């Protein structure tokens, strides 16, 4: 078009530009390109560490590659699936999808209402056959109609009864539409579920009770959805016991949390075993087995009054390359902010002292699979506490005042780092307090229990997503495997009988239709009483 002489119709108005954008969004090409872009973005998301999955690896990457790290950070490549451009591609893809689906659905509904249309010329179709049959045209066509109906063709007989049109395979387009609409439903389910739900982790030691409230989740583990109201269900979970089974080789076999479920009023609603692959459902929540560990019960007393008592959740050191994670000790900090000066006790737990000594003898770290005369190395720090974390201690404003070993059932004096009577396990590394030592601050280690980490999730979108997935599959199969086929039959009086003309074609799976057409012709020949000798078939591939 000459740019110097724009006609009034060609002037780009807003309306026309929008129409162009809409049209190009509707094209398959756009959808294809968007699909491939989505794949490309996902590739980036799988090659670089992602914040939601492994924040520690992202941090390490940023330190190791400052230049690239900064660039990738700005581009949102460390949270691809949460980035604005991933959302943009997804949204465009769905807009394109819906823009394509609306007119297609309308056309499909129209096509389904429409009856098959009679053909003018039958011998111009790809497959044609002729039969000579006795009787009159109307009865021959009626016989052909029965044959085709039995084969699930949609049949329309002409007003004069001497011709018919038939088709089959509307399921192909219907399946394709169901498949594609299912994605809209899927997106809806994901947005509703993730948007209005929440997920987080709860840590509780044996005997403890946990209540679903925002403050009770492990630090930083609670992820509320974008539209979540912030209300929680208030239901409770009490951990009765935790059991882990290992083979002697250290291969885990089973992790089971036996829990009591409490409704919002605190009434016991039931007991349940939560294990890997067997979550519990309760009060709109799904509760999954996530992790476990050891929690020594520690009691601190100052001049006879208890200032801290209960199980202390310990974390595990990361195993170096080639060492079983089960051989690593457990570590945590007991913080006593009410004392002046403030006191912190670092605890290093070895749950199986047998395995510990065998490790020393053999030089090979031994896995600790069960509790067996557990002991803890402890270090006492005095000074000012700067953060409440149980997994970390900032020692810059503190000084070490002593260290020692405490076995299960023993009590130690924290200020002098010596044993105050107790169990007397005969551990030569621990030293008993000399007689006459004034003990004011003591720590007892009466028991060692397990703790369990449960993942608690509320996702109301799951049934929608599941329904979408089922629809998607149900649509996909006919969309790929059925084919649209059209057939026509016309009967004309011929000497003492009728001449039947049969024609047809398939829009998909054409080689298979050749066989089917031959079978249909044979069946019509049978039904109309055509002798085999009079059947003249001219199936040809054009």
């Amino acid at each position, binding site marked *: 078009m000459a740019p110097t002489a724009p006609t009034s119709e060609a002037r780009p108005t807003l309306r026309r530009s929008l129409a162009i954008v809409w049209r190009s969004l509707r094209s398959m090409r756009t959808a294809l390109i968007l699909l491939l872009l989505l794949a490309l973005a996902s590739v980036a998301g799988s090659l670089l560490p992602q914040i939601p999955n492994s924040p520690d690896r992202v941090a390490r990457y940023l330190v190791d590659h400052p230049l690239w790290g900064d660039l990738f950070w700005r581009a949102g490549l460390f949270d691809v699936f949460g980035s604005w451009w991933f959302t943009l591609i997804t949204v465009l893809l769905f807009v394109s999808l819906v823009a394509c689906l609306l007119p297609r659905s309308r056309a499909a509904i129209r096509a389904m209402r429409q009856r098959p249309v009679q053909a003018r010329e039958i011998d111009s179709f790809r497959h044609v056959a002729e039969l000579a049959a006795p009787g009159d045209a109307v009865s021959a066509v009626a016989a052909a109609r029965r044959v085709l109906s039995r084969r699930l063709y949609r049949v329309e007989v002409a007003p004069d009864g001497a011709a018919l049109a038939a088709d089959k395979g509307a399921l192909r387009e219907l399946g394709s539409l169901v498949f594609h609409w299912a994605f809209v439903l899927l997106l809806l389910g994901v947005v509703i579920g993730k948007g209005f739900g929440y997920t987080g982790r709860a840590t509780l030691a044996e005997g403890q009770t946990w209540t679903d409230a925002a403050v009770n989740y492990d630090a930083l583990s609670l992820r509320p959805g974008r539209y979540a109201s912030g209300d929680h269900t208030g239901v409770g979970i009490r951990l009765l016991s935790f059991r882990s089974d290992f083979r002697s080789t250290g291969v885990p076999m089973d992790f089971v949390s036996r829990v009591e479920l409490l409704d919002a009023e605190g009434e016991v609603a039931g007991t349940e075993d939560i294990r890997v692959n067997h979550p519990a459902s309760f009060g709109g929540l799904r509760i999954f087995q996530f992790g476990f560990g050891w929690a020594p019960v520690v009691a601190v007393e100052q001049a006879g009054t208890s200032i801290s008592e209960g199980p202390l959740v310990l974390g595990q050191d990361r195993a170096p390359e080639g060492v079983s994670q089960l051989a690593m000790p457990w570590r945590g900090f007991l913080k006593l902010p009410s004392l002046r000066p403030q006191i912190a006790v670092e605890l290093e737990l070895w749950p199986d002292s047998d395995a510990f000594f065998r490790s020393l003898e053999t030089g090979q770290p031994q896995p600790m699979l069960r509790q067996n005369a557990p002991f803890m190395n402890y270090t006492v720090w005095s000074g000012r506490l700067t953060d409440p974390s149980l997994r970390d201690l900032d020692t810059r404003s503190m000084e070490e005042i002593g260290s020692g070993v405490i076995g299960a059932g023993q009590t130690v004096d924290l200020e002098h780092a010596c044993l105050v009577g107790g169990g007397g396990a005969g551990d030569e590394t621990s030293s008993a307090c000399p007689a006459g030592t004034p003990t004011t601050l003591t720590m007892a280690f009466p028991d060692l229990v397990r703790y369990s980490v449960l993942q608690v999730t509320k996702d109301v979108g799951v049934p929608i997503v599941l329904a979408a997935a089922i629809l998607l*599959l149900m649509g996909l199969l006919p969309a790929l495997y059925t084919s649209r086929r059209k057939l026509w039959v016309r009967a004309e009086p011929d000497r003492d009988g009728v001449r039947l003309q049969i024609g047809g074609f398939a829009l998909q799976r054409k080689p298979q239709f050749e066989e089917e057409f031959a079978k249909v012709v044979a069946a019509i020949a049978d039904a109309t009483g055509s002798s085999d000798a009079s059947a003249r078939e001219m199936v040809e591939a054009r």
Partner: protein
Amino acid sequence: MTHAELAVWSKDLFNVALFAYLAAMVASFAYLAFRAKPLAWASTGLGVAGLLANVASIVTRGMAAGRTPWGNMYEYSAILAALVVVAYLVAVEWRAHLRTLGGFVYAFVVFTMAMAVQFFYVGPTDLLPALNSYWRQIHVTSMIAASSLLGIGCVFTILYLVKDRGERRRVAAMQAQEPPPILGAAVDADTPPDLLPEAGEPDPQPAPGGRRGPLPSAATLDRLAYRFIAFGFPIWTFGTICGAIWAQEAWGRYWGWDPKETWAFITWVIFAGYLHARATVGWKGRRAAVIALVGFVSLFVTYYAVNLWISGLHSYA
């Protein structure tokens, strides 16, 4: 027999299968070159023998471990190999009467099995608790089945691209009134020019005389490739959905963009792109085939690279 003996048997049978497939590959390529019927029979016989050893190896492995033998990459590879060979023997040799393509399929199988022995071999052991779910059987079976079908589809896509290039060249050469270039052993420069690409959809089985060169026509290869991919794609979809259901049970979320999940999704998206491209003007044929090849690469990354190099929840190899 003790479990240890069974494990040794399984390993030996695996090696027998590997070498039988290797011999079948050699025989099939030899048939492609010399067109002597006994070579084709030898190839089929060796393929069937390899398949029997392969299946026996899987069964003894299951007995040795006391569970269904699909718990790690070594076991997946054994099953993948068996399924590829079954699909090839049934769909291509038996149903479609094509015997020239075996070498390429066996090459794929031998590669898969050699990778398994080289990188993934572990003794039959117990499963991690997270893998102990009946969804595992459904998810893993369908993922392996889909991988084998998509894998064969992509072998044929490569052959299609090669053949299509040859056909185009020959057409171009003939249009230039020059003798056709000689491609492969069976090409005879004096045969009449019956090689123009067939219009529309070709016959299901082109007459042997109508073929030129050792391979079936490009259109036949394209259709075979499409059949296998269109068969594999819904199974891949189904397997991925089962994986999501299992993830919901085991990890509390149906989708978490774990590397294996992400790559399964990428592969799915690319093959979805392939199916759409075939129905799009301007993308049919070679362009769609190239998308299928990209899908093949993605399938390989999903199957191998995620386990070897990218750490995530699926790193069980």
